[in-house]
Each structure stands twice: as C-alpha cells, then as structure tokens.
C-alpha cells in the first residue's frame, strides 16, 4: 500500500496525485476492457463478468485515501479499489480465469474476491449483505481503539435491501468509523431508479439514520477525492458514519451477456460525454500537468503490464481437484 492516510488539512490536488488517480482509472478501464471485450468474447473467462466502465472515478478517488490499517468493502463495480489496495492485475486475471494465483485460488470467480491481508473484504454476492459486515469491521476497529476507517461501497439497488437499512442504522447508533459510498448509476440490473425508490437521491435517506451525507458528481474523481477526505475525517474523529452518493452511470450491460436494451439511447449518449478519465485528463492538460503524449505513454505502459499479466495468468495452473474439500473448516 503506497498511500498513507491523509488528514483532510493536508489535502491538495497536485499533479502527482492526478497522475496516480489517472493511473488507477486507466488501469481499471483497460483491465476490465481486456477481460470483458477480449478474454470473455474469446471464451477464456470462466462464468459471468461485471465491469465498472464509466464508474472508475468512484473507487479510485476514494480508496486512494485509505491507509494500510483501513479496510475497504467494495462492490462489483470497484476494481480500481482492488488495484489501489495492492491486488495486482496478475492476481485479478488469475481470478477471472479460475486459476491458482488469484485471491480465491479458484474457489470463487470474477469480482467475488478480496484479501484479508490487504484489508479488502471479499465481495458478498448477496447485494446489501456487505453493509452489516463492513459495519462489524468498523465495530472491531472502534473496540480495539484503532483510528482506522472502513470504506463500504454499494449501488442504488442495494438500498432496497433490509440489510442496507439494518446496517446503516446500527453503524449510526454505534457511531462507527465507516464511510458509505453509493454508486448511484440509475439502474439495478434492468430496473431503473424510479422503480426502486420514490426519493430523488439515495442521500435523502441518510437523515433517517442521523448520518450526514453529501452528493457528488460520480464522474469527477477530484470531487470524490475531496468528499472522501471529508467523510474519512468525520468517521475517524469518532463522529460516526458518513454517506457519499456518487451520481454516475453504468457504461455497460449489467454483465457481459447483457446488451442493456432497456437503457434509452439518450441516457447512454448523455453519459458518454461525461467520461471520468477524459475529464481528469482535461483537468491535467488545462493545468499543464500532462500532455496527450503523456496519456498515451501511461496507457501504453498499462497495456504492456496487462499483456504480461494475461500471459502470466494464462500460464497459471488450475486448482488441483484433490483440494476440493480442503479448508471448509480450520482443521480440514
């Protein structure tokens, strides 16, 4: 983990920071593109596959603020957070390919991974279930007197689950150090937000729990970075949870097999103009922090790293079938 926890006063948007953010966002985009648009179509990916295309700013702008003692509990759209926590493209690809060498060693697939050592809660497929669990991690932090914080991520769809309600309420009542990130991408699978809730914003629900909340442009990585710093400072200071709603859009189907015909064209077009990577690049160019050539170079390096990682992952062995019953219990 390279980034130690920042106090919000130290916050400054520097060229260096932007380069780092850009790196992870491009890495996430390219790695997911490689997985979904190439390996999946080539039939090499085992099972389904979800991406966070268009939502890269959210995991990257937030997780970059976490220190080694902090914990993240990501959603299936947050590959950038995995990368920042040190899970490598090699490991991620091995996971997608069902090989040894991925974080679950082939026991689980695609984004359903995590890493206890690097404080990434493995994704729980039951949508909403991560909220009580993340809350429990925050409880343990408080219990142990740590000054660390949990970043917990979920989508608009998760807010309809009972677990979401129970988790937010408990975190609030217990004043736990946790920041909730909602990626409100307007859809849960094919279900548009207006069929999910009558309020306009997920953040409008935070007052129910006495949790302070803010709404940010989910495609503006710097806005997310700043909001995350506020949220983390709040949580670390013992004031309890904080909620950040990131307005964004899923620039893909729900998963690789979903053409998302149910999304009206105008929405897709509107959001394609708001690409978070282009936006950060524009910011950097305007400040003379980088040129198109630099971006090309960054992308080239990343593609090379991915090429190498794909090769590595494809060379990894599958798990030994004889191990299928190992590790159900500590003693087995």
């Amino acid at each position, binding site marked *: 983990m390279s980034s130690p926890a920042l106090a919000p006063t130290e916050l400054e948007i520097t060229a260096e920071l932007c380069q780092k953010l850009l790196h992870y966002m491009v890495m996430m985009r390219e790695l997911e593109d490689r997985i979904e648009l190439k390996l999946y179509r080539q039939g090499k990916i085992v099972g389904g596959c979800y991406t966070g295309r268009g939502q890269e700013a959210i995991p990257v702008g937030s997780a970059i603020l976490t220190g080694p003692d902090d914990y993240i509990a990501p959603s299936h759209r947050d590959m950038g957070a995995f990368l920042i926590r040190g899970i490598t493209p090699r490991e991620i690809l091995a996971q997608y390919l069902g090989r040894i060498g991925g974080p679950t060693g082939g026991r*689980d697939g695609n984004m359903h991974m995590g890493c206890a050592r690097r404080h990434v809660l493995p994704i729980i*497929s039951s*949508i909403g279930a991560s909220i009580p669990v993340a809350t429990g991690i925050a409880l343990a932090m408080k219990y142990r007197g740590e000054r660390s914080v949990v970043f917990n991520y979920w989508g608009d769809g998760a807010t*309809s*689950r009972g677990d979401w309600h129970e988790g937010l309420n408990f975190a609030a009542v217990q004043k736990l150090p946790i920041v909730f990130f909602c990626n409100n991408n307007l859809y*849960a699978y094919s279900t548009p937000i207006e*069929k999910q809730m009558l309020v306009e914003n997920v953040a409008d629900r935070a007052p129910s729990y006495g949790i302070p909340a803010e709404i940010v442009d989910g495609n503006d990585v710097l806005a997310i970075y700043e909001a995350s710093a506020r949220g983390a400072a709040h949580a670390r200071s013992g004031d309890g949870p904080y909620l950040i709603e990131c307005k964004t859009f899923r620039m893909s189907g729900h998963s690789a097999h979903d053409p998302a015909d149910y999304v009206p064209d105008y929405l897709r077009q509107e959001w394609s103009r708001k690409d978070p990577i282009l936006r950060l690049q524009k910011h950097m160019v305007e400040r003379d922090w980088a040129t198109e050539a630099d971006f090309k170079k960054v992308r080239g390096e990343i593609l090379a790293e991915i090429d190498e990682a794909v090769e590595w992952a494809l060379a990894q062995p599958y*798990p030994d079938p*004889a191990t299928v*019953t190992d590790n159900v219990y500590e003693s087995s």
Partner: protein
Amino acid sequence: MAMMTYVEAIRQGLWEEMERDESVFIMGEDVGIYGGAFKVTKGLLERFGERRVIDTPLSESVIVGAGTGAAIHGLRPVVEMQFSDFMACGFDQITNFAAKCRYRWGGSVPLVVRAPAGGGIHGGPFHSQNPEMPYVHTPGLKVVQPATAYDAKGLIKASIRDNDPVIFLEHKYLYRSIKEDVPADDYTVPLSKAVVRREGTDISVITYGWMVHVALQAAERLEEEISVEVMDLRTLVPYDREAVLKTAKKTSKVILLHEDTLTGGMGGELAGLISEHAFEYLDGPLIRIAAPDTPVPFSPPLEEAFLPNVDKVVEKARWLHKY
C-alpha cells in the same frame, strides 16, 4: 406438440395459467422488460401488462412477503427469486410465516416461489447452490423440481393451482440444455408423485433434477451389465413415499443421488424412510452419492470434482451390484 426447451416450457406454463386465471400474476426483480435473468418471463410483460408483471426493487423479503400477503387476499402470485441462493434473504417470510398459515389459522397461501437452482454453469458459491433442504424440512411448504421440459410445464401449472405455498426450483443447467416434445394443451403433472424414468431390476437410483439425466446416462452405460431403475422424485416434499418404497423393495439395492451436498441432504431422508420401512428387502447398503460438504467451487476442475457425475454413479452401481 412442439420441440421446446425447459425454459420455454416453464414460460408456456406461466403464460397459459395467466391466460386462464386473472388472479395469477408475476413479481420479482427484472421480470418485466428484461424478462428475468434467465428470460423465463420474457414476453409476459408485453402480453399481460405492468399490472400483472411487476418489477420490484431489490428486496427478496418483500417479494416473498408481499407475495404471501397477496395470496392471502385472493391472488395467485408467482414470484421469482433471481437466483435460488438469494431466497435466503426471504427465509423468515417463507419458513416462519407462509409455511405456517394453514396450520395456525387455516390460511390458504397459493403462492409459488420460482427460483433457478443448481450448478454446472461455473456460477461459483453464490449462484450454484441447491437450496431445497431447509424448505423440505419446513412443514407446510411444498418443494418441486422438474427434470424434463414436459414436467416443467405440467408442474408449474400444478404448482400455481395448488393452494399451498410451493417452492419451485428450476435447474439452471437444464434451462437450455434439454429439448423435448411438449404438448401445447392444458395439462398438469400432479405434485407429490414420483415417476420411474427407466425400468430396471437390479438397482434403483432415486434422484431428482439434473441428476435424473446423469442417472439415465449411467443406466445406459451399464445396460449390458446391470439393469438400473431410475426414479425421479419430482416433488421433494411431501414426497412420494409409496413410490420410493416400491422401487426399493423391487430392486433391493438403492442408490440415493443428488447434486446437493451430502450431510443433511435428501439422500439421508430417503435412507431414513427406506431403512425403516423396507429393511427386510435390502440386499446391500444404501449408497448416497452427493456433492461433498463444501460450498460450490467456481473453477472448472473444482466444480467438476464437486458435482456428482456419470462416472461416480457407474462406479458405485458396479460396487453395489457385486455386493
């Protein structure tokens, strides 16, 4: 008659029941315009409209709970769980309320909970489970799993017409892997009736769901050496005790096969019945073939090792035959 996949057969059954009875309606996540994650309800929204095909928020407990309420007040809801694994999120509603209404106060709950179950599609631990046992063990519920397209249509129709809550487990692997002639008529397949899929005299394999096909393939492979009878339970609870005892008494050697994990699985239940009520007839141990007691692993070699298959059945059948 038309050649039809399992998924098409279920859809046709739903369609016919909705045409026949205004009180039948569909509710679940993404069941409307999207037609459900496995496209079982595709086209129903266009035909029956938003009143009768309701897209819900991502709320399993309210899907089954509101389904139960609607059933109490005169409707016949068919609710969908996107994956049977997530029925766990509505577990209290199903087991503590819906199941007990008739016993507690005579309440009729004509609710069907449809749920895609089972593995074989590299779905990993959360999208491959066989969830039947907790429901089999809940008095008041019925649990059904069709193994053929014909049964899929006939059983969904019978489940909808039944006045008790039915957990209707559809096998994901079978959705599109089998195709059969399915009559276009209005027929039902009765609940709680098993069927002999293949007659035999040496060994009985009692099973259900996908494993019916595995058993039939094993029986075929063994044809020259062993005469294997294959029984498809179709309804897991209340199950057809007479049929189970009949085949056990007939062949005297029984294999209990399921895709679900071993300990606490359906195989034990059947062993309990047979070893108590057909003890005198048995000429060999009751053999359980099931997945090992682990979550469902994701990676192909692990999932393959996990799932029961033809080889495993053949091997055990040979052993038992020699016994």
